[in-house]
């Protein structure tokens, strides 16, 4: 079985290096094909591992080699494949395989085709390292690895010029990439502190050792570690207030958005919370904060999605919102439900993004849904895929989203946190509204794109076929809820609804369903027949507030970036120039004067130098000969 672990882990690396070989050359089709095949092999290996883990009920733990050994710190290059990591692996490799195949079609006309595959595969490798590592150090390496790949991929079209925020809220891909990177570094600092705290108190970074040691630690330490780790998770999963980068990250190519900023990387935060669940279970106050923050982000993001006009940003906000759901579940202790929602969400959100990519491709990179409409004629299959994905997202039975999201809402009810429950239910309605607003504005109604002279066309056949697994899974994933529960709870704490909630399950489900259907119906009424703009609403306070993302980006720019730049300037002028540079200059000056006085030896004639060298050798020899005589 070890063999499969290595195949699953290293096939993406091989793919990345292979594609990297051709990074500077013009597009080569076989690069994409081979990368996809390698990713597919990784998926197959993951699936085999999953089957194996399910069969034996125990994880596989392999140690490749000793990695760091300094003093007491011993970190092996070890990988663990247990129920949690294997389910992540399957999700990651499946989605990334589809995205790779999709990218062959999507990046068809891009001149950096090969480079793209190199980055994409490198990302998958980093993600797998993150997921499979058996210690916090490996997790951190993967964590940073996905950060780098995300930076590379968001800024993939780095050559696009900067524009003002009025034209494009994220200014330019390179700006967006840098923003994502920097915001993540802030969060990573928290995570690093968390890891340090754990190492300081436990003396190891291995999961099993750390978790076994937890009961012996002081409560304050645990809370500090949990908070610090969660800050890291917040950054990667774009939770409030570090959420701004995710929507800007939509500047990257759409497959990237699908793979990284919807299905896999952003869920790393959730994964971290699930992975470190022993820690979070022992710190209920932090867990409750997580749940509250998750719920807040769910409605906060959903509200912004209501008014956005950008196709990909709407989906990005919905991703934020769904991440909030996951954190809510994880914070409430229903780890397996969070993981289940994570998996299900990965399928339909990736599908949604890739469908959006199809639309973009058809609309020549036009993203404004107000300029679309009536695309269903031209893009029937994309419509079906996006419709299915939106239904799943809205939580309409029997699709995947219903089972996973309903479980979370039920959990909130079950825990007795009725405020959270209420917010989540309302959010479910908002979710249904904005996702179908987007679908209807894009595919139904009058064909507004015609006035822009665009002739949309359907994506390549093989791309549509490649999307089929995601579509199928978005439909049927919910039926495996019980199986999944049984599988994962071998490792994670089981969470069952209480008797009371169980009785009310039908009613609760119905309430959610009413909200969801209501949202869809509202969307149909408002947008089903075409776009009717309401000037009054658009100029209203709430609409503007939502449209400007609660003015948070502006706030950051004014109250964080600007003061920071001012402080930096002061330090540059007073400290750096006056003290540091002066010291360095003095040293240089000394050397310069010394050199100036001895430069006469430098005749520029090589044989002179050689003679000097000979003299030096003889002097050294004399020294060597005399030394033993002196004793």
């Amino acid at each position, binding site marked *: 079985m070890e063999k499969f672990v290595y195949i699953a882990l290293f096939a993406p690396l091989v793919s990345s290096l292979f594609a990297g070989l051709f990074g500077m050359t013009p597009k080569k089709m076989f690069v994409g094909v081979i990368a996809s095949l390698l990713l597919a092999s990784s998926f197959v290996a993951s699936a085999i591992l999953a089957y194996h883990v399910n069969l034996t009920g125990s994880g596989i733990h392999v140690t490749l080699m000793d990695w760091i050994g300094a003093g007491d710190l011993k970190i092996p290059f070890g990988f663990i494949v247990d129920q949690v990591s294997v389910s992540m692996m399957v999700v990651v490799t499946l989605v990334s395989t589809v995205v790779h195949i999709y990218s062959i079609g999507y990046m068809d006309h891009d001149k950096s085709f090969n480079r793209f595959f190199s980055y994409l595969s490198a990302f998958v490798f980093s993600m797998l390292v993150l997921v499979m590592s058996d210690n916090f150090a490996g997790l951190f390496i993967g964590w940073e690895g996905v950060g780098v790949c995300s930076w590379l991929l968001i800024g993939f079209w780095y050559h696009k010029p900067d524009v003002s925020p009025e034209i494009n809220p994220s200014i330019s891909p390179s700006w967006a990439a840098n923003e994502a990177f920097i915001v993540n570094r802030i969060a990573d600092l928290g995570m690093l502190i968390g890891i340090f705290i754990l190492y300081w108190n436990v003396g190891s970074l291995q999961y099993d050792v750390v978790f076994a040691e937890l009961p012996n630690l002081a409560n304050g330490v645990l809370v500090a570690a949990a908070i610090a780790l969660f800050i890291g998770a917040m950054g990667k999963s774009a939770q409030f207030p570090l959420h701004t980068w995710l929507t800007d990250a939509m500047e990257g190519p759409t497959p990237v958005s699908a793979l990284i900023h919807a299905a896999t990387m952003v869920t790393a935060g959730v994964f971290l919370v699930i992975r470190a669940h022993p820690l979070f279970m022992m710190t209920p106050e932090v867990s409750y904060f997580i749940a509250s923050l998750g719920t807040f982000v769910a409605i906060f993001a959903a509200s912004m999605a209501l008014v956005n006009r950008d196709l990909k940003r709407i989906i990005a906000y919905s991703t934020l919102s769904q991440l909030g759901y996951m954190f809510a579940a994880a914070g409430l202790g229903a780890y397996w439900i969070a993981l289940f929602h994570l998996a299900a969400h990965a399928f339909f959100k990736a599908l949604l993004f890739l469908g959006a990519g199809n639309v973009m491709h058809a609309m020549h990179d036009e993203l404004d849904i107000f300029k679309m409409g009536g695309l269903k004629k031209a893009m029937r299959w994309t419509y079906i895929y996006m419709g299915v994905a939106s239904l799943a997202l809205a939580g309409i039975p029997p699709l995947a989203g219903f089972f996973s999201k309903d479980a979370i809402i039920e959990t909130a009810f079950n825990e007795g946190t009725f405020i959270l429950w209420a917010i989540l239910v309302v959010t479910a309605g908002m979710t249904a509204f904005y996702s179908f607003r987007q679908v209807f504005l894009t595919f139904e109604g009058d064909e507004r794109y015609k006035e822009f002279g665009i002739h949309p066309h359907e994506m390549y056949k093989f791309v549509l076929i490649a999307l089929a697994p995601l579509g199928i899974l978005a439909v049927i994933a919910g039926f495996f809820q019980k199986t999944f529960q049984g599988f994962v709870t071998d490792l994670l704490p089981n969470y069952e609804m209480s008797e009371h909630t169980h009785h009310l399950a039908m009613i609760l489900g119905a309430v959610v369903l009413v909200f969801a259907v209501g949202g869809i119906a509202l969307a149909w009424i408002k947008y089903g027949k075409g776009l009717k703009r309401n000037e009054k609403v658009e100029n209203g306070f709430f609409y503007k507030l939502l449209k400007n993302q609660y003015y948070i980006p502006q706030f950051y720019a004014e109250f964080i970036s600007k003061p920071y730049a001012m402080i930096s300037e002061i330090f540059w002028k007073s400290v750096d120039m006056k003290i540091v540079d002066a010291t360095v200059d003095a040293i240089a000056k000394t050397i310069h004067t010394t050199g100036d006085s001895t*430069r006469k030896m*430098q*005749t*520029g*004639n*090589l*044989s002179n130098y*050689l*003679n000097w060298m*000979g003299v030096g*050798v003889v002097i050294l020899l004399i020294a060597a000969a005399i030394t033993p005589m002196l004793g």
Partner: protein
Amino acid sequence: MIGLNHYLILSGLLFSIGLVGVLRRKNLLMLFFATEVMLNAANIAFAAASHFYGDLTGQMFAFFIVAVAASEVAVGLGLLIVLYKKQGTLDLDDLATMKG
């Protein structure tokens, strides 16, 4: 009986010959020859020490010296040819372009 000292003295003599060559030669190609003499002298010393102490480390170093000589000749000759094309001479005294 031939001992380690014999070999070391031979090596020392050869090294001195190489040094004389390095100091005396003005033609770059001949200078290279002289450095090869010095490298070979070192090789003899290494091999002799290896033999008389029954330790293979000396031979290893000799191997690496051979490898160094091989790469030196590849790069050095390339440079010489470029130089000759540019300057039309290999004389050391004519190469004073770096004089500041």
